[in-house]
């Protein structure tokens, strides 16, 4: 060990007894031995500083503070668990909302068949356009009657029949 190393250790408060090499160097070096003496004197003065002991009532004051800390910690834990419950309830509430919302949408989507629909629904479906269609169907039936008459004319089956008689037959046909 060199002097600078040994003196650096001594000035940092290290005792030569910390290692055999250090101790051997200090014992054999006059300048390091002098420095060790100074440091030893400083240690002796530092040792005069008495340890401060807590004053009366220190424990009582501390445990009163600790009780406050415990109750604060309990409140904090309770608040934390309440928050956790709230956070847990958010997805649950969302799930419930979804479940509640879904049936109402499905009733709107499903329309019962016409056969089982209540009268009000039929009325709603039967628009004026639909009624006009029904009238058209009656006209088509009339046209078919005319066509049949024309076919009869084509076959000359109506020849020899009095037109007045034909009109009377048509009137009879039209009478329910």
């Amino acid at each position, binding site marked *: 060990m060199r002097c600078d190393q040994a003196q*650096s250790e001594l*000035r*940092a*408060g290290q*005792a*030569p*007894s910390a290692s055999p090499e250090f101790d051997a160097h*200090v*014992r054999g070096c006059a300048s390091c*031995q*002098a420095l*060790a*003496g*100074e*440091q*030893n*004197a*400083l*240690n*002796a*003065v*530092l040792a*005069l*500083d*008495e*340890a*401060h*002991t*807590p*004053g009366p009532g*220190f*424990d009582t*004051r*501390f445990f009163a*503070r*600790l009780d406050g*800390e415990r109750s604060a*910690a309990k409140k904090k834990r309770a608040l934390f668990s309440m928050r956790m419950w709230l956070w847990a309830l958010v997805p649950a509430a969302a799930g419930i909302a979804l479940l509640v919302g879904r049936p109402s949408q499905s009733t709107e989507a499903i329309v019962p068949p016409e056969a089982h629909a209540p009268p009000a629904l039929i009325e709603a479906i039967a628009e004026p356009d639909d009624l006009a269609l029904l009238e058209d169907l009656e006209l088509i039936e009339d046209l078919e009657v005319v066509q049949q008459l024309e076919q009869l004319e084509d076959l000359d089956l109506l020849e020899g029949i009095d037109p007045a008689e034909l009109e009377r037959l048509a009137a009879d046909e039209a009478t329910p």
Partner: protein
Amino acid sequence: MTDPDAELMLTFCRGQEDAFVELYCRYRDRIVAFCKRIVGTDAQAEEAAQDVFIKLYRARDGYTQRSRFSTFIYRIAANHCLNLQARVEHKVVARGVDIDARLLPNAAHPAPAPLAALEQGELREQLARALATLPDRQRTALVLVHYEGLSYEEAAEAIDVTESALKSLIHRARGAMMEELKPFMQGDLGASKGARNAM
């Protein structure tokens, strides 16, 4: 190597409050003495020591055994006291008060006491005054190693510096103390010269 204090802390972390009370009993005097040497007045030191134990109580949720328990609690104490000191110095600077005047009440009128008449009580006062003049980190490093008996490694961990930086802090602190106390150490130096072979 098992550390019984760390075991106690782990027991406390598992919910047994008796373990905390046991740790309090073991460390109360040491933490109060440490705080006294760092923050100065008795009332402030006791308040600071209580704060340290409250912080220890709160630390149970996040405690993991990475080092000796003593290192852990002194780390809390050192951080707390250094923060307190920083706040005090900040306030004093903000109010325009001279820090040196606060730390060294007799700096303006140093007592030229004759060496022979200096008794131990006076030497203690000089010692307290010399300790107070040290910068906070130097004082904390010195107190941890010299008074609290932490190793260099443990003290370095407690104040979050490297071991060589800690040695440097102690080196400077001891040098400053030597300068302050040399006039009062003549007798001790003389006595120590005879006793130096005992080191």
